[in-house]
């Protein structure tokens, strides 16, 4: 294996120290995802509402300090997950490695991260600052896809398969080759079979099952259309 050019090696070391998400970035994306996903995502990560956070006298820095303290005593149990993972995350907090030899491909080290954060250009981002954040910008195409799929989900759960089909048709029109096309097709079959297990719906469902026999979505289609395991 070719050794790394020494200059390239120093760039790699610098990059490893530099390219690390900040706590603010982790929290900002989590909040945005919580709005899209719902269903306890934010609670599972220990996120509190922005309003509550703003009125709380315990700031983020204090929370992080608490986590670091707890981490030091190996007592992380009960600390919100979002914060738990920040211990190894502190930007540029890894010890500067002594120019590793790249004569051979490196084995994965289990470097114990130090909890002392080093100043970073992004460290002081306000976690809840909405300006320019992912949450407030126009939805990306993928987020638009997810939004339509979520509408269909909600309609199905509300017992409104026709409304689900409308949302899914919109998804099909706007994102025929979308990243969530498979999910759309499964949802469509679920809606069709909920409306009535017509020969056409069953035929389409069987094609889906043949094409995706191992997918978890197939279980959903099979259940909705009353197709047993023999249709695998």
């Amino acid at each position, binding site marked *: 294996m070719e050794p790394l050019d020494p200059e390239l090696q120093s760039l790699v070391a610098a990059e490893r120290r530099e390219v690390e998400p900040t706590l603010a970035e982790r929290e900002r994306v989590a909040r945005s995802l919580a709005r899209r996903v719902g269903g306890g995502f934010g609670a599972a990560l220990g996120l509190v509402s922005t309003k509550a956070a703003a009125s709380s006298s315990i700031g983020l820095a204090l929370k992080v300090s608490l986590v670091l303290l707890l981490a030091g005593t190996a007592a992380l149990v009960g600390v919100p997950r979002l914060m738990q993972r920040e211990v190894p995350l502190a930007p*540029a907090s890894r010890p500067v490695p002594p120019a590793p030899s790249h004569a051979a491909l490196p084995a994965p080290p289990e470097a114990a991260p130090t909890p002392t954060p080093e100043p970073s250009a992004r460290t002081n981002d306000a976690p809840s600052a909405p300006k320019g954040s992912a949450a407030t910008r126009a939805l990306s195409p993928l987020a638009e896809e997810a939004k339509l799929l979520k509408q269909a989900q909600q309609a199905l759960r509300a017992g409104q398969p026709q409304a689900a089909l409308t949302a899914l048709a919109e998804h099909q029109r706007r994102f025929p080759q979308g990243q969530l096309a498979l999910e759309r097709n499964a949802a469509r079959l679920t809606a069709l079979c909920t409306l009535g297990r017509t020969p056409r719906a069953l035929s389409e469902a069987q094609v889906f099952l043949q094409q995706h026999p191992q997918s978890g979505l197939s279980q959903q289609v099979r259940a909705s259309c009353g197709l047993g395991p023999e249709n695998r």
Partner: protein
Amino acid sequence: MTSVPSQHFSPQAPALLPNAGTPQPAQGARAEQLAELYAEHFAFVWRSAKRLGVPLSAVDDAVQDVFLVAFHKLPEFEGRSSLRSWLFGITRKVVRGHRANRVSAPRDATDPEALPSQDAGPLRAAEQAQSARLLQQLLDELEEDRRAAFILVDLEELSVPEAAEVLGVNLNTLYSRVRAARQDLGKSLSRLRARSERGEPWNR
């Protein structure tokens, strides 16, 4: 490097779209699974998106998209690969989509990475940032598969077998991609060095 446990989610993840009338728990359980995934792998996905070429100003959006896709595809996850492999695959696809969008949209002039490079000052932090930016520029010139191999082995410090598993290739292919990536980067660096010696800026 953050160690990532090798545990897998159960292939029997809750259904994406429960039948009409199915109560809420399936959705809630899946959201909780996503939270677990997020807590464990956010940093890896964030670094990967950045290293695969998403500008800093768009990394949050890209990472959010990765986890949105993961949320919707959790029922499809069969547990044949590790979650990290699965997420890296999603990240690569999402990054391709972001790149395609950026082709039609001019780069944001307020993106700090789009601003002309400042000469490295005496501050080490500035030098470090500049080094990281230079490496990003070099990575941008790499062929995609080589870039992914280099990211996993030389930047994420995965072992060769781990990286091969993530990329779904055999060991020989992985070795050869890493070797080629290193050679390409070395050549690019030499070219930039020569340009710098002629007094030309290294950044485009």
